[in-house]
C-alpha cells in the first residue's frame, strides 16, 4: 500500500475489521507487504520490500493506494520515499508501481476521486488515482473512510475471483450498486412525506440535508463499527462520503444543494441564488408594469391589439343539437 495525500483514516478504518480480524488478515489471508502504518521495518529496509515486490513479482501484486494524487509543483508537495539520494513524489511512485501491478485499488474517497484533499480551492491540485494512471483501470473503493468490509471484500474478490463487476465510477457493484436512499429504513417516512425538521429526530432526514438519495453505498444494511449503527440510525443525515465531488458537492451537510464558490473564497447558498434571481425578476416585472402603466404603453398596446369589427355579430341558436349559424339579418352598427 502506498500512502499519498492522506490522513491515514482508511488504514484506521481497515484496522477495525471484524471478522476476519486484522491480525488474521496479516498472518493468514494476505501477503501484506508494504504499509507505512503497519511496517515493522523502517527507512530504506522497508522501502526495499516495495522495490523487490515491484521487480520480482511484476503483474502479480495488488497496489493499494490511499490518499489523493498531489500535482502541485510537479508533485513535490508530497514526497513518499527517498531513493538514491532523490525524493520520490507520490504521483511518480504510484505510476511506476501501478503500471506493473495486477490490480490497482484506490481506497478512500481521496484516492478514488480526490476527496477532501481536492476540496475547494484545491491548492495542491489533487485528483484521484485514475488521473495518474489513465492507461489502466483503477478499482475505486471510495468512502471517507472506506468501510473495512468494502476494502477487504474487494481484495478478497480480486484474490479469489478476479475483478468484481464495477459500476459507473469504477466501484465494485456489490458494495456501491444501490443508493443509501433505496435501502434506508426511514424510506417509508420519505414516501409518506414525513420529514425531520431537525437533526436528532426519528423521521426521514431529507429536509435536513440527507444525501442518501444521491449516494451509492450499502451502509443501511452493512452499518458501521461491527454493524452496530450508522449515521441515519443515530439521526444524523448521510453526508454522501462515497460520491465523487465529496465534500464540496455535499456541503453544507445540512442542506441538500451545494454552495456555489465565488471568486475570493466565499461561497453562496444555491437556494439564496435562486431566491435572488426570482426576487429580481419579480421586481423587474412589477417595476416595468408600473412604468408601462404610467407611460400609457399598456393602454396603447391593448387598444392597438384589440379591434372592433364594423358591425357586431349576433348568433342565434338554430337547432337544439348545438348548431349555430350567423343571423342573416345581423344588425349593422
Amino acid at each position, binding site marked *: 500500500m502506498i500512502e499519498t495525500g492522506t490522513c491515514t483514516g482508511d488504514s484506521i478504518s481497515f484496522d477495525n475489521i471484524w471478522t476476519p480480524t486484522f491480525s488474521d488478515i496479516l498472518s493468514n489471508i494476505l501477503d501484506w507487504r508494504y504499509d507505512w502504518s503497519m511496517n515493522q521495518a523502517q527507512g530504506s529496509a522497508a522501502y526495499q520490500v516495495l522495490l523487490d515486490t515491484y521487480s520480482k513479482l511484476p503483474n502479480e501484486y495488488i497496489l493499494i493506494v490511499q490518499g489523493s494524487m498531489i500535482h502541485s509543483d510537479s508533485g513535490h508537495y508530497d514526497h513518499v520515499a527517498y531513493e538514491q539520494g532523490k525524493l520520490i513524489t507520490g504521483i511518480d511512485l504510484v505510476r511506476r508501481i501501478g503500471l506493473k501491478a495486477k490490480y490497482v485499488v484506490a481506497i478512500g474517497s481521496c484516492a478514488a476521486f480526490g476527496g477532501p484533499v481536492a476540496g475547494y480551492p484545491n491548492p495542491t491540485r489533487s485528483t484521484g488515482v485514475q488521473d495518474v494512471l489513465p492507461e489502466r483501470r483503477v478499482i475505486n473503493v471510495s468512502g471517507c473512510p472506506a468501510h473495512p468490509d468494502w476494502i477487504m471484500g474487494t481484495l478478497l474478490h480480486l484474490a479469489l475471483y478476479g475483478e468484481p463487476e464495477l459500476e459507473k465510477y469504477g466501484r465494485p457493484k456489490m458494495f456501491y450498486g444501490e443508493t443509501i436512499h433505496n435501502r434506508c429504513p426511514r424510506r417509508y417516512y420519505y414516501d409518506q*412525506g414525513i420529514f425531520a425538521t431537525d437533526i436528532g429526530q426519528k423521521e426521514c432526514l431529507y429536509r435536513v440535508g440527507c444525501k442518501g438519495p444521491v449516494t451509492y453505498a450499502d451502509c443501511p444494511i452493512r452499518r458501521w463499527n461491527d454493524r452496530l449503527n450508522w449515521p441515519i440510525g443515530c439521526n444524523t443525515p448521510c453526508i454522501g462520503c462515497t460520491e465523487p*465531488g465529496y465534500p464540496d*458537492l455535499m456541503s453544507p451537510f445540512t442542506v441538500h444543494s*451545494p454552495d456555489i464558490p465565488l471568486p475570493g473564497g466565499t461561497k453562496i447558498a444555491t437556494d439564496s441564488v435562486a431566491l435572488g434571481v426570482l426576487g429580481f425578476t419579480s421586481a423587474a416585472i412589477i417595476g416595468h408594469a408600473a412604468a408601462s402603466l404610467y407611460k400609457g404603453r*399598456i393602454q396603447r*398596446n391593448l387598444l392597438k391589439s384589440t379591434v372592433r369589427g364594423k358591425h357586431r355579430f349576433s348568433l342565434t341558436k338554430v337547432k337544439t343539437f348545438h348548431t349555430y349559424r350567423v343571423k342573416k339579418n345581423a344588425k349593422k352598427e
Partner: protein
Amino acid sequence: MKKKNNLRKPFFEELQQGNVEGEIILFQPLWVRIFHWGFALSLTGILLSGLELHKPAKFFAVSYGDMFKIHVISSWFALGFVALRCADAILRRDQSLIPKLRDLKLFPKLLAYYLFLRTAPPPNRKYNGGQSLVYSSWLLLFLIASLLGLSSYWQGEHLIWVWRLVGGFQRLRWIKFMITIYFLATIPLHIYLSMTENLSHLQAMVSGYERKPPPKKS
C-alpha cells in the same frame, strides 16, 4: 345523419367580408396551439412537483412516491409535446423558433424599447429577437434537463456518460435546479409580456387566427 358545424364557415366569411380592417390570417396552426397549452400544463406539473421533491413544503404532507410519479409522467408528456412541435416545425419548414443573426442584431433595439428608450419595437419576424432567444433557450434547456432527468431515472443503467460528463448525481441535481430557476424566472416574464404587449397574439394562441393590420398608407 351527419351534422356539420355550421358556425365556423359563415363566421369567417363574415370576418373576411370587410368587417374588420386588414386581413384575418392563420397565426398559430393547430399543432402549435396544442403544443403550447400541453407543454405549459405539463411543464407546470414538472416544475411544481420538482420543487416539492427538492424542498418539501412544511404545510404539505404528501406522498413522495406520488409526487415523483407526477414529476415523471409530466416529463414524459412534456417530451411528447416537444416532439410534436419539432415534427410540426420540420414538416412546415417553420424556422420561427430558431434565432437568426438579424434577431441578435435587433436585440439591443428591442431592449431599448422595453427600457422605454424607444417608443416602438424594431420590426420582427413572427417572434421578436427576445422571444426567439427565450423560446429556443427553453427548448434547449428542457432537452438538457430531460437528458439529466432520464439519466438519474435510469440510475446509471443507461446514459452513464451523462453522469460522468456532469461529474455525479449531486451536480446533476444542482444543474436541474438551476434550469428550474431559469424557467421560473422567464415564464412570468413571458406571461407578463404576452398580456401587455399584444393581446391579439395571445388570443391567436387559442383561436389560431389573428388580424393582420392593413399596410400603412403613406
